[in-house]
């Protein structure tokens, strides 16, 4: 067994990269991951990535915000400490709406973004797990686990045929630790 860990196909064009993914899949070669400098539509279906459920989560965060705002206002200015403002009723629902709305948005945004960061392991100072430094610039990278797929020259050939500009054999998984 060689000590090559990952085979990277580096493409200059997203269409060619999508073609490369098809080629590999036709040959039953499992793709580890794909790194691109921009979102590529249609790629998640090819790689069998499920639809994100962040939208459902966002909805519940929003409802929590609405409820929290209502609870805060109701419990303070209707239950706990009624203020007599020109003899008007303490339970003035229309006046509560602006803050209920704002907190709905606030909770949705923070709940959504923080869950997104957590679920994709993004946080300040995290060591970037990068396989090819040009994946954030102008290259579209297909990574194949070399330990799981033995036919290295066949993978090289498939990637080259699909239009890969270069094919790299990396002995380390991530290159950005040094």
């Amino acid at each position, binding site marked *: 067994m060689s000590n090559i860990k990952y085979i990277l196909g580096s493409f200059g064009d997203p269409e060619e990269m999508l073609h490369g993914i098809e080629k590999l899949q036709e040959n039953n070669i499992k793709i580890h991951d794909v790194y691109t400098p921009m*979102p590529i539509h249609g790629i998640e279906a090819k790689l069998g*990535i499920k639809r994100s459920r962040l939208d459902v989560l*966002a909805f519940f965060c929003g409802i929590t915000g609405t409820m929290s705002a209502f609870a805060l206002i109701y419990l303070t*200015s209707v239950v*706990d400490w009624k203020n007599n403002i020109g003899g008007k009723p303490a339970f*003035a629902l229309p006046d509560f709406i*602006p803050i209920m*709305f704002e907190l709905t948005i606030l909770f949705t945004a923070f709940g959504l973004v923080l869950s*997104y960061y957590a679920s994709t392991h993004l946080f300040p100072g995290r060591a970037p797990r990068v396989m090819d430094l040009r994946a954030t*610039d102008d290259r579209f990278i297909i990574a194949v686990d070399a330990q799981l797929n033995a036919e290295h020259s066949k993978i090289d050939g498939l990637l080259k045929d699909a239009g890969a500009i270069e094919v790299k054999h990396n002995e380390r998984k991530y290159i950005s630790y040094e």
Partner: protein
Amino acid sequence: MSGHNESILREPLITGRDITYGKITSDILEPVENKPNKAWWIGFIAALCGATLWLVAVSYTFWNGIGAWGLNKTVGWAWDITGFVWWVGIGHAGTLISAVLLLFRQNWRNSINRSAEAMTIFAVICAATYVVSHMGRPWLAYWVLPLPNQFGSLWVNFNSPLVWDMFAISTYFSVSLLFWYTGLLPDIATIRDRATGLRRRIYSIFSFGWNGNVKTWQRFETVSLILAGISTPLVLSVHTIVSMDFATSVIPGWHTTIFPPYFVAGAIFSGFAMVLTLLLVARKVLGLENYITMFHIESMNKIIILTGSIVGVAYITEFFIAWYSGSEYEAYAFVNRSTGPYWWAYWMMMTCNVISPQLLWFKKIRLSIPATWILSLVVNIGMWFERFVIIVTSLHRDYLPSSWAMFYPTWVDVSVFVGSIGVFFTLFLLFLRVLPSIAIAEVKMILKSSSEQEKLKQIKEGHLDKTYVKEYVESLEKFDSVKQEDYAKI
């Protein structure tokens, strides 16, 4: 990516011949990866002087109290709230561009959203400093938060629009910041992967470990879309609530149901004007003509005509209703506004906001960079006067003629305002140096569908309708970044 080409009738969003993904990165990161040029230093030093002035004036205010300002018993709000509303208004274009235009699938937003959002954040910071400094005892600023009674103050009054405003502005600021920063992550990672040494370490911390794999991008798009969906009503609600600070009172001239839509239109109007003021200069100095094209400038000018006209209709409606309501106090407030001692401010507002933007109906003016830039400054001035007129002229002659007064700003008033512009520009210029001023990943997304070179390729392939091609080539005449002679033979 779908294999279908965009209609040839649409103007290109990226011009130039040999644009590649790599070139987009290098072009946009040019100011970030190199030493600043002379123009930047001149601008930065000037802005820093302004920021220092602001620091002096605000410190003076904190030390002496707001008696340092020209306020009096009758005119209790003047330059402070004018400045606050002006800055909040300017802060509306960023989220409008990034959220509303995303929902409407306006791809031209992709190259202006980043700097517009940065502008939003800095403008809201400037607005917030006014709120704090006009409080009198700014060290007790946290009393605007709902704190338990044992804390010293009573629970805040949730029926008060000022409390709503606190919630609205702070939500707006933090949500805009999240939206902006999440969008920045892939671009910070781009800088990180091209940098070395300490720079790489610093950008690495701020990139949150972004590596651009499939799942991260897929969820990134979901998050962007949901954030756009919630930011759209948010941006409309913020200025609505700012307008309620006035509209829920009983002061003639303020107590108006038209205020929320009128303020929102005015905010978008002034926000786009400020975006143009900044981007027309940045485009030239940073050499971004291929990404911020004449089409972008024309589109923004069209939004300025639309919102400027809405504002004009609102002014006239307000005037009509003041008479039609039959309320003599209301009618007096408006007659006094236009013919009283502050007539010059009123007519300044009318000229700058209603009359001069109508010049943009002329294609020549709309496509002239100097004219557009001057008009954008005129709109900014007009919108400042709008807030001044609404606030000061409604207050200075109240119900009791014996207490009628005029407002005269002191040097502190003027310095806080001029200084806040300095703070804004200091922050904006620093932003241009350390972060990409255009969303790199988003521009790369439209390279294959909406760039000039791609459309030229389609024309050369020759399967397109001749009349459409002719129309497209004619539409290119307005672009200053397109080489016209290439199209002469087609």
